[in-house]
Protein backbone atom coordinates (compact mmCIF):
# COMPACT_ATOMS: atom_id res chain seq x y z
CA UNK A 1 0.00 0.00 0.00
CA UNK A 2 2.72 2.42 0.93
CA UNK A 3 4.43 1.45 -2.31
CA UNK A 4 1.39 2.63 -4.27
CA UNK A 5 1.24 5.81 -2.30
CA UNK A 6 4.88 6.53 -3.02
CA UNK A 7 4.32 5.78 -6.71
CA UNK A 8 1.47 8.24 -6.92
CA UNK A 9 3.30 10.88 -4.93
CA UNK A 10 6.21 10.58 -7.31
CA UNK A 11 4.33 10.36 -10.65
CA UNK A 12 0.89 11.91 -10.24
CA UNK A 13 2.12 15.47 -10.92
CA UNK A 14 3.78 14.21 -14.12
CA UNK A 15 0.62 12.40 -15.16
CA UNK A 16 -1.48 15.48 -14.54
CA UNK A 17 0.89 17.56 -16.58
CA UNK A 18 0.79 14.93 -19.35
CA UNK A 19 -3.00 14.87 -19.17
CA UNK A 20 -2.96 18.63 -19.65
CA UNK A 21 -0.90 18.18 -22.83
CA UNK A 22 -3.30 15.47 -24.00
CA UNK A 23 -6.27 17.78 -23.46
CA UNK A 24 -4.48 20.57 -25.28
CA UNK A 25 -3.78 18.28 -28.24
CA UNK A 26 -7.42 17.18 -28.27
CA UNK A 27 -8.79 20.71 -28.08
CA UNK A 28 -6.55 22.15 -30.78
CA UNK A 29 -6.88 19.12 -33.05
CA UNK A 30 -10.63 19.22 -32.63
CA UNK A 31 -10.85 22.95 -33.23
CA UNK A 32 -8.68 22.87 -36.31
CA UNK A 33 -10.57 19.81 -37.55
CA UNK A 34 -13.89 21.54 -36.93
CA UNK A 35 -13.10 24.61 -38.99
CA UNK A 36 -11.43 22.72 -41.80
CA UNK A 37 -13.97 19.88 -41.66
CA UNK A 38 -16.90 22.27 -42.00
CA UNK A 39 -15.24 23.98 -44.94
CA UNK A 40 -14.62 20.57 -46.56
CA UNK A 41 -18.22 19.49 -46.06
CA UNK A 42 -19.54 22.73 -47.57
CA UNK A 43 -17.09 22.42 -50.45
CA UNK A 44 -18.15 18.85 -51.07
CA UNK A 45 -21.83 19.83 -51.21
CA UNK A 46 -21.97 23.31 -52.65
CA UNK A 47 -18.68 24.25 -54.29
CA UNK A 48 -17.86 24.29 -58.00
CA UNK A 49 -16.77 20.98 -59.41
CA UNK A 50 -13.00 21.35 -59.15
CA UNK A 51 -13.17 22.39 -55.51
CA UNK A 52 -15.60 19.60 -54.77
CA UNK A 53 -13.18 17.02 -56.17
CA UNK A 54 -10.36 18.59 -54.19
CA UNK A 55 -12.41 18.21 -51.00
CA UNK A 56 -13.33 14.62 -51.82
CA UNK A 57 -9.67 13.84 -52.55
CA UNK A 58 -8.57 15.34 -49.26
CA UNK A 59 -11.15 13.43 -47.25
CA UNK A 60 -10.33 10.11 -48.93
CA UNK A 61 -6.60 10.65 -48.49
CA UNK A 62 -6.74 11.46 -44.79
CA UNK A 63 -9.30 8.82 -43.93
CA UNK A 64 -7.53 6.22 -46.01
CA UNK A 65 -4.06 6.44 -44.46
CA UNK A 66 -2.87 5.87 -40.89
CA UNK A 67 -2.58 8.92 -38.67
CA UNK A 68 0.90 7.81 -37.70
CA UNK A 69 2.06 7.94 -41.31
CA UNK A 70 0.60 11.45 -41.63
CA UNK A 71 2.30 12.49 -38.39
CA UNK A 72 5.70 11.17 -39.51
CA UNK A 73 5.34 12.79 -42.91
CA UNK A 74 4.72 16.13 -41.25
CA UNK A 75 7.39 15.84 -38.58
CA UNK A 76 10.15 13.95 -40.43
CA UNK A 77 9.12 14.58 -44.04
CA UNK A 78 8.39 18.30 -44.22
CA UNK A 79 11.87 19.44 -43.11
CA UNK A 80 13.29 18.02 -46.34
CA UNK A 81 10.90 20.36 -48.15
CA UNK A 82 12.23 23.23 -46.09
CA UNK A 83 9.40 23.35 -43.55
CA UNK A 84 10.49 22.42 -40.05
CA UNK A 85 7.83 22.29 -37.39
CA UNK A 86 8.26 21.70 -33.68
CA UNK A 87 7.00 18.47 -32.14
CA UNK A 88 3.84 20.03 -30.75
CA UNK A 89 3.16 21.96 -33.95
CA UNK A 90 3.48 18.77 -35.97
CA UNK A 91 1.18 16.98 -33.55
CA UNK A 92 -1.46 19.73 -33.65
CA UNK A 93 -1.33 19.84 -37.41
CA UNK A 94 -1.50 16.07 -37.95
CA UNK A 95 -4.38 15.65 -35.49
CA UNK A 96 -6.26 18.62 -36.95
CA UNK A 97 -5.82 17.64 -40.58
CA UNK A 98 -6.80 14.07 -39.81
CA UNK A 99 -9.80 14.95 -37.66
CA UNK A 100 -11.03 17.37 -40.33
CA UNK A 101 -11.55 14.49 -42.77
CA UNK A 102 -13.71 12.62 -40.27
CA UNK A 103 -15.61 15.67 -39.10
CA UNK A 104 -16.31 16.65 -42.70
CA UNK A 105 -18.22 13.42 -43.20
CA UNK A 106 -20.31 13.96 -40.08
CA UNK A 107 -21.15 17.49 -41.21
CA UNK A 108 -21.94 16.40 -44.75
CA UNK A 109 -24.41 13.81 -43.48
CA UNK A 110 -26.17 16.31 -41.23
CA UNK A 111 -26.36 19.00 -43.91
CA UNK A 112 -27.80 16.53 -46.39
CA UNK A 113 -30.42 15.37 -43.93
CA UNK A 114 -31.60 18.98 -43.47
CA UNK A 115 -32.44 18.66 -47.10
CA UNK A 116 -32.80 20.73 -50.19
CA UNK A 117 -36.26 21.90 -49.16
CA UNK A 118 -34.92 24.22 -46.48
CA UNK A 119 -32.63 25.70 -49.12
CA UNK A 120 -35.66 26.24 -51.36
CA UNK A 121 -37.55 27.91 -48.51
CA UNK A 122 -34.64 30.24 -47.81
CA UNK A 123 -34.15 31.16 -51.45
CA UNK A 124 -37.89 31.77 -51.82
CA UNK A 125 -37.84 34.70 -49.40
CA UNK A 126 -34.92 36.24 -51.25
CA UNK A 127 -31.96 34.97 -49.23
CA UNK A 128 -28.85 34.27 -51.26
CA UNK A 129 -27.39 30.77 -51.31
CA UNK A 130 -24.66 31.61 -48.85
CA UNK A 131 -27.05 33.41 -46.48
CA UNK A 132 -29.39 30.42 -46.57
CA UNK A 133 -26.49 28.14 -45.67
CA UNK A 134 -25.42 30.45 -42.88
CA UNK A 135 -28.78 31.28 -41.31
CA UNK A 136 -30.91 28.25 -42.16
CA UNK A 137 -28.89 25.17 -43.04
CA UNK A 138 -25.92 25.35 -40.67
CA UNK A 139 -27.82 26.26 -37.49
CA UNK A 140 -29.93 23.16 -38.00
CA UNK A 141 -27.19 20.87 -39.26
CA UNK A 142 -24.80 21.74 -36.43
CA UNK A 143 -27.43 20.85 -33.86
CA UNK A 144 -28.45 17.70 -35.64
CA UNK A 145 -24.86 16.51 -36.00
CA UNK A 146 -24.01 16.53 -32.29
CA UNK A 147 -25.01 12.95 -31.33
CA UNK A 148 -22.97 11.45 -34.20
CA UNK A 149 -20.17 14.00 -34.08
CA UNK A 150 -19.75 13.39 -30.32
CA UNK A 151 -17.74 10.29 -31.25
CA UNK A 152 -15.01 12.44 -32.69
CA UNK A 153 -13.77 14.30 -29.57
CA UNK A 154 -13.72 11.04 -27.65
CA UNK A 155 -11.98 9.12 -30.36
CA UNK A 156 -9.53 11.97 -30.90
CA UNK A 157 -8.67 12.22 -27.21
CA UNK A 158 -7.52 8.60 -27.23
CA UNK A 159 -5.87 8.87 -30.64
CA UNK A 160 -3.62 11.67 -29.39
CA UNK A 161 -1.60 8.97 -27.62
CA UNK A 162 0.35 8.26 -30.84
CA UNK A 163 2.17 11.61 -30.61
CA UNK A 164 4.50 10.27 -27.91
CA UNK A 165 6.30 8.67 -30.86
CA UNK A 166 7.60 12.09 -31.89
CA UNK A 167 8.44 12.81 -28.25
CA UNK A 168 5.54 15.08 -27.36
CA UNK A 169 5.22 14.90 -23.56
CA UNK A 170 1.59 13.86 -23.35
CA UNK A 171 -0.03 11.49 -20.86
CA UNK A 172 1.09 8.45 -22.86
CA UNK A 173 4.71 9.64 -22.81
CA UNK A 174 4.56 10.23 -19.05
CA UNK A 175 3.12 6.75 -18.56
CA UNK A 176 5.87 5.18 -20.58
CA UNK A 177 8.50 7.10 -18.64
CA UNK A 178 7.05 5.98 -15.32
CA UNK A 179 6.89 2.39 -16.54
CA UNK A 180 10.54 2.42 -17.58
CA UNK A 181 11.71 4.09 -14.39
CA UNK A 182 9.77 1.91 -11.97
CA UNK A 183 9.86 -1.39 -13.90
CA UNK A 184 6.13 -1.48 -13.17
CA UNK A 185 4.33 -1.41 -16.53
CA UNK A 186 1.08 -2.70 -15.10
CA UNK A 187 0.84 -0.02 -12.44
CA UNK A 188 1.95 2.79 -14.72
CA UNK A 189 -0.23 1.98 -17.70
CA UNK A 190 -3.22 1.17 -15.53
CA UNK A 191 -2.81 4.52 -13.83
CA UNK A 192 -2.81 6.46 -17.10
CA UNK A 193 -5.66 4.27 -18.40
CA UNK A 194 -7.73 5.42 -15.44
CA UNK A 195 -6.86 9.04 -16.18
CA UNK A 196 -7.86 8.61 -19.85
CA UNK A 197 -11.09 7.01 -18.68
CA UNK A 198 -11.90 9.92 -16.38
CA UNK A 199 -11.21 12.44 -19.14
CA UNK A 200 -13.44 10.55 -21.58
CA UNK A 201 -16.19 10.37 -18.97
CA UNK A 202 -16.10 14.09 -18.30
CA UNK A 203 -15.94 14.90 -22.01
CA UNK A 204 -18.91 12.66 -22.62
CA UNK A 205 -20.95 14.50 -19.99
CA UNK A 206 -20.02 17.84 -21.54
CA UNK A 207 -21.16 16.61 -24.95
CA UNK A 208 -24.43 15.29 -23.56
CA UNK A 209 -25.03 18.67 -21.94
CA UNK A 210 -24.31 20.40 -25.24
CA UNK A 211 -26.81 18.17 -27.01
CA UNK A 212 -29.52 18.93 -24.45
CA UNK A 213 -28.75 22.62 -24.48
CA UNK A 214 -29.03 23.05 -28.26
CA UNK A 215 -32.11 20.92 -28.76
CA UNK A 216 -34.86 22.61 -30.79
CA UNK A 217 -38.20 22.41 -28.98
CA UNK A 218 -40.65 20.21 -30.84
CA UNK A 219 -38.07 19.29 -33.45
CA UNK A 220 -36.67 16.15 -31.83
CA UNK A 221 -40.09 14.53 -31.90
CA UNK A 222 -40.31 15.16 -35.58
CA UNK A 223 -36.95 13.53 -36.25
CA UNK A 224 -37.92 10.57 -34.12
CA UNK A 225 -41.09 10.04 -36.09
CA UNK A 226 -39.26 10.31 -39.41
Amino acid at each position, binding site marked *: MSEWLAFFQRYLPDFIQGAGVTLELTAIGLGLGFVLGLALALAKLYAPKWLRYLAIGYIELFRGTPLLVQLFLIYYGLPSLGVTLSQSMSAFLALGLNSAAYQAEYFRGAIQSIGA*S*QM*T*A*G*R*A*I*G*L*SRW*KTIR*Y*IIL*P*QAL*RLVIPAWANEPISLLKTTAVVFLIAVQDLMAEGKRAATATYDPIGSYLAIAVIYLIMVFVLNEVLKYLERKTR*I*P*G*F*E*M*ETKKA
Partner: protein
Amino acid sequence: MTKPILTVKNLAKKYGENIIFKNISLTVNEGDTIVIIGPSGTGKSTLLRCINLLTCPDEGQIWLDDKEITAKGCNEDAVRQHIGMVFQNFLLFNHLTAIENVKLGLTKVKHMNPAEAQIKAMNELERVGLADRANHYPGQLSGGQQQRVAIARALAMDPRIMLFDEPTSALDPELIGEVLEVMRKLALEGMTMLVVTHEMGFAREVADRIVFLEKGSIVEEGTPDELFYKPKFERTREFLWKITELYGKKETEKK
Protein backbone atom coordinates in the same frame (compact mmCIF):
# COMPACT_ATOMS: atom_id res chain seq x y z
CA MET B 1 -57.39 47.49 -61.24
CA THR B 2 -56.27 46.17 -64.61
CA LYS B 3 -52.58 46.76 -64.22
CA PRO B 4 -50.79 43.47 -64.87
CA ILE B 5 -48.51 42.41 -62.03
CA LEU B 6 -47.34 39.17 -63.58
CA THR B 7 -47.14 38.32 -67.24
CA VAL B 8 -46.00 34.93 -68.46
CA LYS B 9 -45.42 34.44 -72.15
CA ASN B 10 -44.86 31.14 -73.96
CA LEU B 11 -43.19 29.53 -70.99
CA ALA B 12 -41.84 26.01 -71.48
CA LYS B 13 -39.97 23.55 -69.32
CA LYS B 14 -38.73 20.06 -69.96
CA TYR B 15 -36.55 17.60 -68.13
CA GLY B 16 -34.64 15.71 -70.76
CA GLU B 17 -37.22 14.37 -73.21
CA ASN B 18 -39.99 14.82 -70.70
CA ILE B 19 -42.00 17.97 -71.43
CA ILE B 20 -43.39 19.36 -68.19
CA PHE B 21 -45.32 22.18 -69.83
CA LYS B 22 -45.14 24.26 -72.98
CA ASN B 23 -46.61 27.44 -74.39
CA ILE B 24 -47.95 28.71 -71.12
CA SER B 25 -49.14 32.32 -71.29
CA LEU B 26 -50.78 33.93 -68.35
CA THR B 27 -51.56 37.40 -67.07
CA VAL B 28 -52.32 38.20 -63.46
CA ASN B 29 -53.71 41.67 -62.84
CA GLU B 30 -53.34 43.63 -59.66
CA GLY B 31 -55.68 42.37 -56.97
CA ASP B 32 -56.65 39.27 -58.91
CA THR B 33 -56.84 35.79 -57.49
CA ILE B 34 -56.11 33.22 -60.15
CA VAL B 35 -56.58 29.56 -59.32
CA ILE B 36 -54.72 26.94 -61.32
CA ILE B 37 -56.27 23.51 -61.33
CA GLY B 38 -55.43 20.30 -63.09
CA PRO B 39 -54.58 16.64 -62.57
CA SER B 40 -51.39 15.87 -60.68
CA GLY B 41 -48.25 15.69 -62.76
CA THR B 42 -49.34 18.39 -65.20
CA GLY B 43 -46.63 20.81 -64.20
CA LYS B 44 -48.56 23.12 -61.88
CA SER B 45 -45.90 23.13 -59.18
CA THR B 46 -43.07 23.43 -61.68
CA LEU B 47 -44.86 26.40 -63.22
CA LEU B 48 -44.93 28.19 -59.87
CA ARG B 49 -41.30 27.33 -59.24
CA CYS B 50 -40.40 28.76 -62.63
CA ILE B 51 -42.30 31.95 -61.92
CA ASN B 52 -40.15 32.75 -58.90
CA LEU B 53 -37.05 31.40 -60.64
CA LEU B 54 -36.46 28.52 -58.24
CA THR B 55 -36.42 26.44 -61.41
CA CYS B 56 -35.08 27.83 -64.62
CA PRO B 57 -37.59 27.78 -67.50
CA ASP B 58 -36.25 26.58 -70.88
CA GLU B 59 -38.20 29.00 -73.04
CA GLY B 60 -40.43 32.00 -72.69
CA GLN B 61 -40.44 35.17 -70.69
CA ILE B 62 -41.81 36.38 -67.39
CA TRP B 63 -42.44 39.96 -66.37
CA LEU B 64 -43.03 41.16 -62.85
CA ASP B 65 -44.62 44.57 -63.12
CA ASP B 66 -42.78 45.97 -66.13
CA LYS B 67 -39.52 44.22 -65.51
CA GLU B 68 -38.55 41.08 -67.35
CA ILE B 69 -37.25 38.71 -64.68
CA THR B 70 -36.17 36.04 -67.14
CA ALA B 71 -33.78 38.53 -68.75
CA LYS B 72 -30.08 37.72 -68.56
CA GLY B 73 -28.28 39.35 -65.66
CA CYS B 74 -31.45 39.75 -63.62
CA ASN B 75 -30.78 39.40 -59.90
CA GLU B 76 -32.79 36.36 -58.82
CA ASP B 77 -32.56 37.07 -55.11
CA ALA B 78 -33.92 40.56 -55.65
CA VAL B 79 -36.79 39.16 -57.73
CA ARG B 80 -37.73 36.52 -55.19
CA GLN B 81 -38.19 38.93 -52.33
CA HIS B 82 -41.03 40.50 -54.33
CA ILE B 83 -42.71 37.15 -54.94
CA GLY B 84 -44.14 35.41 -51.89
CA MET B 85 -44.25 31.62 -52.04
CA VAL B 86 -46.18 29.20 -49.86
CA PHE B 87 -45.33 25.52 -50.15
CA GLN B 88 -47.31 22.37 -49.74
CA ASN B 89 -45.12 21.23 -46.85
CA PHE B 90 -44.89 24.64 -45.15
CA LEU B 91 -41.08 24.54 -45.07
CA LEU B 92 -40.73 26.66 -41.98
CA PHE B 93 -37.24 27.07 -40.58
CA ASN B 94 -37.36 24.46 -37.84
CA HIS B 95 -34.77 26.01 -35.56
CA LEU B 96 -36.56 29.34 -35.33
CA THR B 97 -39.71 30.35 -33.49
CA ALA B 98 -42.75 31.53 -35.44
CA ILE B 99 -41.81 35.18 -35.09
CA GLU B 100 -38.16 34.53 -35.92
CA ASN B 101 -39.29 32.75 -39.07
CA VAL B 102 -41.20 35.84 -40.12
CA LYS B 103 -38.42 38.20 -39.04
CA LEU B 104 -35.51 36.52 -40.81
CA GLY B 105 -36.24 37.86 -44.28
CA LEU B 106 -36.84 41.33 -42.88
CA THR B 107 -33.48 41.54 -41.13
CA LYS B 108 -31.32 39.50 -43.51
CA VAL B 109 -32.82 40.40 -46.88
CA LYS B 110 -34.42 43.78 -46.32
CA HIS B 111 -31.84 44.81 -43.69
CA MET B 112 -34.52 46.24 -41.46
CA ASN B 113 -33.40 47.01 -37.92
CA PRO B 114 -34.39 44.36 -35.35
CA ALA B 115 -36.87 46.50 -33.44
CA GLU B 116 -38.79 47.48 -36.57
CA ALA B 117 -38.66 43.92 -37.85
CA GLN B 118 -40.08 42.65 -34.57
CA ILE B 119 -43.09 44.98 -34.87
CA LYS B 120 -43.66 44.17 -38.53
CA ALA B 121 -43.35 40.42 -37.90
CA MET B 122 -45.82 40.62 -35.03
CA ASN B 123 -48.29 42.46 -37.27
CA GLU B 124 -48.00 39.75 -39.90
CA LEU B 125 -48.59 37.03 -37.31
CA GLU B 126 -51.62 38.93 -36.12
CA ARG B 127 -52.85 39.06 -39.70
CA VAL B 128 -52.90 35.25 -39.82
CA GLY B 129 -54.30 35.04 -36.29
CA LEU B 130 -51.21 33.63 -34.61
CA ALA B 131 -49.89 36.48 -32.46
CA ASP B 132 -50.30 34.28 -29.40
CA ARG B 133 -48.06 31.59 -30.92
CA ALA B 134 -45.18 33.94 -31.75
CA ASN B 135 -42.68 32.18 -29.51
CA HIS B 136 -43.58 28.61 -30.46
CA TYR B 137 -41.27 26.53 -32.59
CA PRO B 138 -42.67 24.92 -35.76
CA GLY B 139 -42.52 21.52 -34.08
CA GLN B 140 -44.91 22.82 -31.43
CA LEU B 141 -47.52 24.05 -33.93
CA SER B 142 -50.24 22.18 -35.80
CA GLY B 143 -49.95 21.84 -39.58
CA GLY B 144 -52.55 24.55 -40.11
CA GLN B 145 -50.71 26.91 -37.79
CA GLN B 146 -47.40 26.15 -39.48
CA GLN B 147 -48.88 26.97 -42.85
CA ARG B 148 -50.28 30.24 -41.51
CA VAL B 149 -46.85 31.16 -40.17
CA ALA B 150 -45.44 30.34 -43.61
CA ILE B 151 -48.00 32.71 -45.14
CA ALA B 152 -47.04 35.42 -42.64
CA ARG B 153 -43.37 34.85 -43.49
CA ALA B 154 -44.09 35.43 -47.17
CA LEU B 155 -46.37 38.41 -46.49
CA ALA B 156 -43.74 40.11 -44.35
CA MET B 157 -41.67 40.77 -47.43
CA ASP B 158 -44.53 42.87 -48.87
CA PRO B 159 -44.59 40.84 -52.07
CA ARG B 160 -46.18 42.07 -55.28
CA ILE B 161 -47.77 38.67 -55.71
CA MET B 162 -48.25 35.55 -53.61
CA LEU B 163 -47.83 32.07 -55.07
CA PHE B 164 -49.54 29.20 -53.28
CA ASP B 165 -48.49 25.67 -54.19
CA GLU B 166 -51.22 23.35 -52.95
CA PRO B 167 -51.15 25.02 -49.54
CA THR B 168 -53.72 22.71 -47.96
CA SER B 169 -52.80 19.35 -49.53
CA ALA B 170 -50.62 18.23 -46.64
CA LEU B 171 -53.15 19.18 -43.97
CA ASP B 172 -55.63 17.14 -42.01
CA PRO B 173 -59.17 17.96 -43.19
CA GLU B 174 -60.12 19.81 -40.02
CA LEU B 175 -57.12 22.15 -40.41
CA ILE B 176 -57.75 23.13 -44.03
CA GLY B 177 -60.45 25.66 -43.15
CA GLU B 178 -58.21 27.94 -41.10
CA VAL B 179 -55.67 28.22 -43.92
CA LEU B 180 -58.31 28.88 -46.59
CA GLU B 181 -59.85 31.48 -44.30
CA VAL B 182 -56.56 33.39 -44.18
CA MET B 183 -56.23 33.14 -47.96
CA ARG B 184 -59.78 34.34 -48.49
CA LYS B 185 -59.09 37.31 -46.26
CA LEU B 186 -55.95 38.13 -48.24
CA ALA B 187 -57.86 38.02 -51.50
CA LEU B 188 -60.48 40.38 -50.08
CA GLU B 189 -57.76 42.76 -48.93
CA GLY B 190 -56.67 42.97 -52.55
CA MET B 191 -53.55 40.81 -52.49
CA THR B 192 -52.60 39.50 -55.93
CA MET B 193 -52.55 35.73 -55.74
CA LEU B 194 -51.78 32.76 -57.95
CA VAL B 195 -53.03 29.60 -56.30
CA VAL B 196 -52.58 25.96 -57.22
CA THR B 197 -55.21 24.00 -55.33
CA HIS B 198 -57.81 21.27 -55.45
CA GLU B 199 -60.11 23.19 -53.11
CA MET B 200 -62.97 23.87 -55.49
CA GLY B 201 -65.05 25.61 -52.83
CA PHE B 202 -62.28 28.17 -52.47
CA ALA B 203 -61.84 28.44 -56.23
CA ARG B 204 -65.51 29.10 -56.89
CA GLU B 205 -65.87 31.69 -54.18
CA VAL B 206 -62.60 33.54 -54.32
CA ALA B 207 -61.08 33.14 -57.77
CA ASP B 208 -61.47 35.86 -60.36
CA ARG B 209 -60.38 33.35 -62.94
CA ILE B 210 -59.68 29.63 -63.00
CA VAL B 211 -57.03 28.20 -65.26
CA PHE B 212 -57.34 24.54 -66.15
CA LEU B 213 -53.99 22.98 -66.91
CA GLU B 214 -53.62 19.47 -68.28
CA LYS B 215 -50.67 17.61 -69.77
CA GLY B 216 -48.55 20.72 -69.70
CA SER B 217 -50.90 23.04 -71.55
CA ILE B 218 -53.65 25.42 -70.62
CA VAL B 219 -56.88 23.76 -71.72
CA GLU B 220 -59.17 26.57 -70.78
CA GLU B 221 -59.44 29.59 -68.56
CA GLY B 222 -62.31 31.74 -67.43
CA THR B 223 -64.39 32.88 -64.49
CA PRO B 224 -65.55 30.19 -62.05
CA ASP B 225 -69.08 30.37 -63.43
CA GLU B 226 -67.91 30.00 -67.00
CA LEU B 227 -65.80 26.98 -66.18
CA PHE B 228 -68.30 25.25 -63.92
CA TYR B 229 -71.46 25.89 -65.94
CA LYS B 230 -70.52 26.56 -69.53
CA PRO B 231 -67.04 25.23 -70.17
CA LYS B 232 -65.83 25.14 -73.76
CA PHE B 233 -64.47 21.66 -73.33
CA GLU B 234 -66.20 18.64 -71.94
CA ARG B 235 -62.93 17.62 -70.32
CA THR B 236 -62.97 20.76 -68.15
CA ARG B 237 -66.46 20.00 -66.86
CA GLU B 238 -65.54 16.39 -66.12
CA PHE B 239 -62.46 17.33 -64.17
CA LEU B 240 -64.07 20.16 -62.23
CA TRP B 241 -67.02 18.14 -61.06
CA LYS B 242 -64.94 15.13 -60.22
CA ILE B 243 -62.65 17.26 -58.07
CA THR B 244 -65.58 19.07 -56.50
CA GLU B 245 -67.04 15.75 -55.47
CA LEU B 246 -63.72 14.61 -54.05
CA TYR B 247 -62.82 17.81 -52.24
CA GLY B 248 -66.21 18.99 -51.07
CA LYS B 249 -68.74 21.63 -51.86
CA LYS B 250 -68.71 25.37 -51.53
CA GLU B 251 -67.57 26.48 -48.13
CA THR B 252 -70.98 28.04 -47.51
CA GLU B 253 -72.75 24.78 -48.31
CA LYS B 254 -70.66 23.02 -45.70
CA LYS B 255 -71.88 25.24 -42.91
